[in-house]
């Protein structure tokens, strides 16, 4: 029986939360808390020593933070599955954690409902993301796909001048700076820019920059 239990290591600098979690997890028949850590350094050491199946990791801890601990632990022992427990409901954190080898992303505000599910999912080799984060991830992928498709069938019909202006825009110069550099009025530069955007079906300065980068305009 005990061989089949999921061996858990808890790493969180908040003692109250840690003891609450320990109680909750110990009550589960298929789980067993084998250790606790209060900071990143301790988490790394305990992970090495105890070789847990799953590490529950808070990413904002003092000293060696959770992010660094995650990277080091996964490097030393890729078999340890890591479920990150965090206050941050932001895609950027999730992206960073997933690329650093995390398997689960659970928000503390949903810990009571999702944590057990997440632990069981990653133990079986799966991935667990908070539903809102999954949505964000998918829509991000879709945006990228749309942008690529749009650019790939666009013919460049720019005049020499427009090409020059686009290049300078992509290099990060403002309309006024561009006007000074190529001896045009600011209004003329604005007009060129508007034409470029029309022709390339782009809407903003950032899209112009990306277009120029993707089409090698900056290399020439």
């Amino acid at each position, binding site marked *: 029986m005990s061989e089949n239990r999921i061996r858990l290591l808890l790493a969180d600098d908040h003692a109250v*939360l840690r003891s609450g*979690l320990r109680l909750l997890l110990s009550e589960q028949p298929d789980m067993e808390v084998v250790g606790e850590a209060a900071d990143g350094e301790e988490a790394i050491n305990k992970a090495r020593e105890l070789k847990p199946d799953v590490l529950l990791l808070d990413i*904002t801890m003092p000293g060696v933070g959770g992010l660094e601990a995650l990277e080091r632990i996964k490097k030393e022992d890729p078999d340890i599955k890591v479920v990150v427990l965090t*206050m941050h409901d932001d895609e950027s954190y999730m992206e960073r954690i997933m690329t650093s080898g995390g398997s689960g992303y659970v928000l503390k*505000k949903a810990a009571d409902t999702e944590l057990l599910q997440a632990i069981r999912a990653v133990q079986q080799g799966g991935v667990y993301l908070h539903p809102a984060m999954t949505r964000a991830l998918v829509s991000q992928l879709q945006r990228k796909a749309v942008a690529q498709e749009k650019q790939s069938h666009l013919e460049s019909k720019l005049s020499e001048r427009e090409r020059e202006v686009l290049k300078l825009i992509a290099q990060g110069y403002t309309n006024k700076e561009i006007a000074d550099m190529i001896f045009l009025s600011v209004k003329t530069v604005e007009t060129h820019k508007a034409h470029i955007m029309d022709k390339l079906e782009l809407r903003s300065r950032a899209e112009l920059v990306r277009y120029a980068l993707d089409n090698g305009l900056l290399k020439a």
Partner: protein
Amino acid sequence: MQKTQAVREAEERAAARGASGGLDEPATAPYWCPMMDGPAGTPPCRRARADATSAGDGELVQRNKELSALVALAETISRSQELRTVLEDALEKVLEIVAMEGGEILILDPDSGRLVLRATRGIETPQTREGVSFAPGEGVPGLVAEAARPMVIRNVLKDPRFVRARAGWQTPHALVGIPLMARGEVVGVMDLFCLRECPHRTEECVQCACVDAEDVSLLLAMGQQIGMAIDSARLWEELRRKEKNRAHLLQQVIVAQEEERKRIARELHDGAGQLLASLMISVKRLQSMDLPEEACARMREIRATAARILEEVHDLALGLRPSMLDDLGLAVALACACDDLGRRTGIAVDYHRDGLESIHLPGAVEIAVYRIVQEALTNVAKHASASNVSLLLRARGGRLRAIVEDDGVGFDVAATLEDAPEERKLGLVGMQERASLLGGSCTVESRPGAGCTVVVEVPIPRQGEAYE
């Protein structure tokens, strides 16, 4: 002003005449100025007047010379705003104009009330002349300053008013002391020295005995000019000092404010946030017990309320200080700021960054750029009625540049800085202020109907690798 050979010769003749005429200077007269010397005869003169054919022409030539001299001096003085340079250049120019060998400028120190030596030229002085100063009424400078009138001493060795017989100081044969005036007050004294051995071996130096009425009035006019220059250089220095102090204080206020925000945000997360999360877990444990349905319903309510409080605490902390700025860096924190704006206003912000991957930005740069961009985005949301906004972040050649551009209604930048409501104006000025504290700049390009572009550029202090 270059003298012709003819002028020189005429001057020498005149000087000889003046010496043989022998102006008798009463030892009791504390101040001597040929201008006030009454009808005692022709003041000795080495200036152009001597060889002028008529009085009218002479007058004209003299005025012309004076004017050119003043113009030349004004031109010299205006080249620099730094006091030391102003004094040295002015002294050099004056000596050149009046053809004397040495000189010094002393400045009245408003705190001690003493005249402090600040510039010398052409005269041998000890190596260390730090702290050489005169009290009011002490020595020639003190007397000149006290009376605010010029003084000519023809025989320095015999004159008790000259008190500087210290080691290492070259003693001139004769001198002229000129008060330097600004806004009706004496701000300093310029002494001009005749150092040449008198060729006529007379008791009084004929070389400078020839400083005549026109020369003194010209010198007084120069004294006014130099005085004004000292005054403005001082104001400039004071302004610079105050500006430096202000910037320093502002920096400290900003750092303190950011630290405070960070601390409160952490405490919200670590304190209330964690306790609420624990509370929710405890409720969860209760739910797994065998309790009546009504109790379970209550517990679900408690759980929902706790979850909402936790969310609010999180948002509050995020508003105070985005923790991803510290955890994940500027580029990521700005991505969140863009998303956040999109969520709140429905305006999509197109964000593009490059060159930041291998760069380490100091915390001060990160937070300043973050706050400036945040302000720019807030302005877009509040005022621009834009449909497209983009944010570009780029590190290149040791500089970090962020551009926030919208296609909204735009505005007249100069007019807004002039008469916008205090809050908006402060926002714009504050952005520029924060950038300039880092040695950077923040410019706003906009006009009505043409959208708005905010450019922030700050230097990246050397440490990590620069892009490219």
